């Protein structure tokens, strides 16, 4: 393949739709062409950031779901379908917004206001894990351990780190790049066949994570956060930042982070 063919086939390569022979040719070109490799990495960063920005702008679907259920129930009961919801007038939208704000403050918002501050990277990791692992939003994951290790290497992370993190019956399931708090991370998912946990890895920044360390594990500061449904724990080695996210429990997150501190 030449650079033109690489540009043409890139959408299929990124989405994992090339057959094995084409993918091998594509990889072979990337190994010899630094420009195409740089270009693909840059595109992966932009794609990951675009995902992060759009997914952070979640809309509320409760009103749509309720309305659709009402319409279906009316139809099932033999009633004619009512007219579609008229567009909200400005005053009605404002009144709804105020009511919604009051409800939020009375419920979930209060918890948010009083709980301890959470490091942005912990919050971003929890959200990413929820969307991509718990809810299984479809993403172009790499599943071949060799390709994942190469991706790690391209990010300055030792290939051995990827396999070393599998512990207690867990194995590496998939990996890809993602953006958390304006930084690119390697997102690895490990599974024991039933449960899954995420590890987000990147080469260490000059400044430490803005979270108070809960303990020092194997000489490395270990920080934890509990968010709605997700338990996050991170460690920092001289070379790497590793953020672990699980839905199991804060104890499980702590154990996984301690294990990471021993092997990284």
């Amino acid at each position: 393949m030449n650079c033109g063919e690489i540009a043409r086939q890139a959408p299929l390569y990124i989405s994992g739709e090339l057959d094995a022979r084409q993918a091998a040719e594509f990889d072979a070109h990337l190994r010899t062409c630094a420009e195409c490799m740089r270009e693909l990495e840059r595109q992966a960063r932009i794609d990951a950031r675009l995902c992060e920005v759009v997914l952070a702008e979640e809309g509320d679907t409760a009103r749509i779901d309720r309305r659709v259920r009402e319409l279906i129930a009316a139809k099932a009961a033999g009633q004619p379908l009512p007219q579609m919801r008229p567009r909200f007038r400005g005053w009605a939208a404002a009144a709804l917004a105020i009511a919604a704000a009051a409800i939020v403050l009375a419920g979930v918002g209060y918890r948010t206001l009083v709980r301890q501050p959470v490091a942005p990277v912990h919050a971003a990791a929890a959200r990413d894990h929820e969307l991509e692992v718990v809810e299984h939003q479809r993403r172009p994951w790499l599943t071949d351990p060799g390709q994942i290790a190469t991706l790690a290497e391209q990010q300055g992370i030792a290939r051995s780190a990827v396999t070393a993190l599998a512990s207690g019956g867990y194995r590496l399931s998939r990996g890809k790049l993602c953006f958390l708090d304006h930084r690119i991370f390697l997102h690895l998912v490990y599974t024991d066949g039933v449960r899954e946990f995420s590890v987000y890895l990147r080469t260490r920044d000059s400044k430490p994570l803005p979270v108070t360390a809960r303990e020092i594990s194997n000489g490395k500061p270990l920080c934890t956060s509990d968010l709605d449904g997700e338990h996050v724990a991170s460690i920092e080695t001289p070379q790497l930042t590793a953020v672990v996210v699980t839905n199991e429990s804060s104890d499980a997150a702590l154990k996984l982070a301690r294990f990471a501190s021993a092997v990284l």
Partner: protein
Amino acid sequence: MPLSRSLLRVARRITSDAAAAEDLVQETLLRAWRGFEQFETGTNARAWLFRIMFNAFYAQGRKRRSGPVLVSLEHAELELEPTAQPLSGWTDAVSVSRALNGLSEEHKTVLMLGVVEGFKCREMAEILSLPIGTVMSRLSRARQALRERLQVPDSRPEGSRAGAACAEREAS
């Protein structure tokens, strides 16, 4: 409702209006309910729902083009902007969101389906009723257009960038 969040996310971008997006998702789910017997068990339910949504959207578009435009795009952009404070550089959320909003409907569509929702090119071709070559080239050009808006340089030589345009010519 299954997938209503994904549908709403894409609908907000392609309609550029929060209320129109809600109407479109509502219409999509009702059409899916009415036409559920046409869904083949074992096939891709997600792609099927998105195809229904785009059919509804294009049908609305035909009506829109023959009637007055009621939606203020300026207002819509404000609604879609994230609440995060602007930071410097292309990774700033406001810049990325604005750059996406500023793209053509075709480009926003393929970026939302392919990059954000993770559909494969073959699935997008099915959803949008387009040849796969057209989807590939459109996705390449949409990525390029987004980069230009974000002012992220392309280091590839001109010749290799033109590959996308060739693919579209071949497809059509």
